[in-house]
């Protein structure tokens, strides 16, 4: 029989306000096995923990029940407390009387009754607990970064600096991501390329970093410290190690009418291409959907002009297997599609553009060499209307917009407006805003400068519709401060489109078994205290894949993710989760049902000799669980008809004891 101590937490008034904690600790005193029961204001405080430690010694406790907040909050805390008191940490059970009781019930009597029942269930469970010891597994000292934007670049550089090898997988032909497409960066207005490209070069030159560009992750197996990853290197039809990036092939390629995705389709590129001058790796790539040689075998010019002999039309997709200890997700974002926003005439007029398109239009390396020209006729726009919150903060229609604030639009719109007024002072610039959100260092000052120094006209209100008429765009909008409707004849309308996670994130999350929110942003292990870790061990989050972020935030999160990875890779061994499945070989039929449902392949079979009651021996096939691979889901325990398979920490008899206690 266990000697159980019960500790009821008030959580200040969080629990004590709706639950009579004294009544709970009194009631639980009479439960089987309970030898000590008390309550205290903050069980998780040092004083509370000391109280538990003292009670363990004084009453020779073998099990602890803490009636407090969710075990997701403080189970680990109290396990440590138990360990410090010399108890096996897995002899602790938590009754969740805060989130699932005091916070959801208003009546003190109801709350108290339920808290007592939850406490009883925990006591019933702890009575059947057994001490558990976690297993150990080795750590592969190599990290994988998925995504080669600024988030992935910074994470990789920081991990590499600590001396660990890192691989970056980037689906585009070059690393750089969205930041490479930007013109200037707020609030300092340094040019994006000037601060990004040196980092890209650092990546290329760092001995600890390998870049798999034009590649995707196709399979992920394993677990923290021991991931087995298959990387699909798409055929680029150019030998990466030989190509010098001289660009002769690009120049000679006769197929020059391919929409250039780097410039968002505002100009064309050739079928063989290097996305931009500072690309890393600076290697040409053949677009198989546009190349005549690949489509019908007629051409081969690039091969002829390539002095290095790097062109290889027979190249095949290549699959690379590699082991990693940690995986960082840095899959980034994209602006949402403007197709559903008919009111802004995005699909009707070339002169209605998104902000990212505007970045390319003002970028010196962009399709207009930095001259602000209307995409339709190349004229200089004299009146520009910026519309904010296009698709952000929109919960009317899930197909159209996003419920969340995209966070970066206020600042980049201020930047755009300011730059236009700076370069072309004769241009009228209107910004229609709902709220201007500038909570960042020097952000509000920057926005005020746009208004006060550069004379950008900020209008509180929204654009209702944009109608192309002749070479003008008729903008109808409301000015809520002056309480009037505005009609502006604009030359250019720039939409601050909401941003959404990259489409590759969802299948990746499935491969990683990492959780996502309803918007497909990766969920962090804790929104405040573990913001760069995924709940899935060994998976870390960097940049906008976790939520909208600007560059400084992304870089700091990237560094934080890197430090978490370094902390993991610095360990030689990981202690595993002891709550794993185990099979009782005496009852196992060897039927393979458990093996079939195990998502991790943790179950194997062996022939084992058994001694029978009549002293003969018999060889039977029995299941064996690899505790380092098992993650403790328990699928096998239900597939097993004989009940030979059970789960540590969530044993059948423990769960049934809880059911019994609740139903008593």
């Amino acid at each position, binding site marked *: 029989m266990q000697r159980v101590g019960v500790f009821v937490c008030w959580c200040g008034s969080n629990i004590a306000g709706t639950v009579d904690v004294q009544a709970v600790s009194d009631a639980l005193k009479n439960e089987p096995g309970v030898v000590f029961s008390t309550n205290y204001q903050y069980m998780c405080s040092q004083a509370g923990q000391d109280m538990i430690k003292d009670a363990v010694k004084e009453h020779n406790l073998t099990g602890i029940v803490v009636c407090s907040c969710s075990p*997701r909050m403080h189970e680990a805390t109290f396990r440590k407390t138990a360990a410090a008191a010399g108890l096996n940490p897995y002899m602790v059970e938590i009754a969740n009387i*805060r989130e699932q009781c005091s916070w959801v019930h208003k009546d003190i009597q109801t709350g108290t009754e339920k808290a007592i029942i939850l406490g009883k269930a925990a006591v019933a469970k702890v009575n059947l607990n057994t001490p558990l010891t976690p297993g150990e597994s080795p750590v592969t000292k190599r990290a994988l970064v998925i995504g080669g934007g600024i988030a992935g670049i910074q994470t990789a550089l920081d991990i590499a600096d600590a001396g660990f090898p890192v691989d970056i997988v980037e689906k585009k032909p070059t690393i750089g991501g969205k930041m490479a497409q930007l013109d200037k960066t707020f609030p300092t207005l340094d040019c994006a390329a000037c601060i990004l490209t040196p980092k890209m070069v650092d990546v290329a030159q760092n001995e600890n970093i390998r870049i798999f560009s034009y590649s995707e992750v196709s399979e992920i197996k394993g677990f923290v410290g021991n991931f087995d990853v298959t990387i699909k290197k798409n055929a680029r039809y150019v030998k990466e190690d030989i190509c010098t990036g001289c660009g002769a092939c690009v120049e000679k390629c006769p197929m020059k009418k391919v929409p250039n995705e780097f410039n968002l389709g505002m100009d064309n590129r050739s079928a063989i291409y290097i996305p931009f001058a500072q690309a890393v790796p600076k290697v040409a790539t053949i677009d198989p959907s546009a190349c005549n040689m690949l489509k019908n075998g007629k051409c081969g010019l690039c091969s002829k002009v390539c002095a290095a002999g790097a062109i290889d039309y027979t190249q095949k997709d290549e699959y690379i297997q590699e082991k990693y200890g940690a995986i960082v997700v840095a899959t980034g974002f994209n602006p949402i599609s403007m197709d559903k926003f008919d009111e802004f005439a995005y699909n009707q007029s070339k002169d209605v553009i998104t902000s990212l398109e505007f970045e390319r239009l003002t970028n010196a390396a962009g399709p207009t060499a930095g001259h602000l020209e209307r995409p339709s006729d190349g004229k200089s726009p004299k009146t520009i209307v910026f519309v904010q919150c296009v698709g952000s903060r929109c919960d009317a229609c899930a197909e159209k917009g996003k419920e969340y604030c995209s966070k970066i639009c206020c600042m980049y719109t201020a930047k755009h407006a300011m730059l236009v007024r700076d370069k072309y002072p004769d241009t009228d610039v209107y910004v229609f805003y709902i709220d201007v959100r500038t909570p960042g260092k020097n952000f509000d000052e920057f926005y005020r400068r746009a208004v006060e120094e550069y004379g950008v006209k900020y209008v509180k209100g929204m654009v209702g519709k944009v109608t192309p008429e002749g070479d003008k765009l008729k903008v109808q909008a409301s000015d809520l401060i002056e309480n009037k409707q505005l009609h502006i004849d604009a030359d250019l309308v720039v939409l601050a489109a909401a941003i959404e996670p990259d489409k590759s994130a969802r299948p990746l999350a499935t491969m990683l078994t990492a*959780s996502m929110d309803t918007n497909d942003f990766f969920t962090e292990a804790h929104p405040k205290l573990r913001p760069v870790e995924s709940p899935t061990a060994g998976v870390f989050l960097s940049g906008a894949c976790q939520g909208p972020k600007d560059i400084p935030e992304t870089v700091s999160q990237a560094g934080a993710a890197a430090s978490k990875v370094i902390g993991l890779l610095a360990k030689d061994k990981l202690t595993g989760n002891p709550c794993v499945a185990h099979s009782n070989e005496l009852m196992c039929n060897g039927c393979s049902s458990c093996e079939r449902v195990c998502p991790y392949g943790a179950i194997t079979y062996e022939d084992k000799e058994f001694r029978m009651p009549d002293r003969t021996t018999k060889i039977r096939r029995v299941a064996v669980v690899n505790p380092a691979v098992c993650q403790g*889901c328990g699928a096998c325990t239900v597939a097993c008809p004989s009940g030979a398979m059970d*789960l540590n920490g969530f044993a059948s008899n423990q769960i049934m004891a809880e*059911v019994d206690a*609740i139903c008593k």
Partner: protein
Amino acid sequence: MQINEHKPLIVAFCCNWCSYAGADLAGNNRLNYPADVKIIRVPCSCRVNPMFVLRAFQRGADGVIICGCHPGDCHYTSGNYYTRRRMAALFSMLDFLGIEKERTRVEWVSAAEGAKFAATMNDFVEKVTALGENKRLEDLRCKK
């Protein structure tokens, strides 16, 4: 409103990663649901053995609900897919034996769906309350 309204006993099995967290979120947001719901934490909905469900009914539970991650979002990749098959078969069988189908339910509640958790529990309790006491599967010896 009935005068002698029966207070049902609901056992909710919640997977640790999604639904239990969803229940916590309901708590964080102070979304009320009846105290009749008692949650048992399991690592994954696929840990729920049909024997647990029957055991709960045996001991006098009036309804049993199993909550897991949305299909495709299982922390263990595929656990809830097995849950889906197992419980579809089991609940269909209980219905075949004449147990009211409203007493059993499987619901997918993510860690972000505190509101859905509370709404689900409110709805389930309401439906089970309407059915009255579970007389068909209880074990009289277990009644006090």
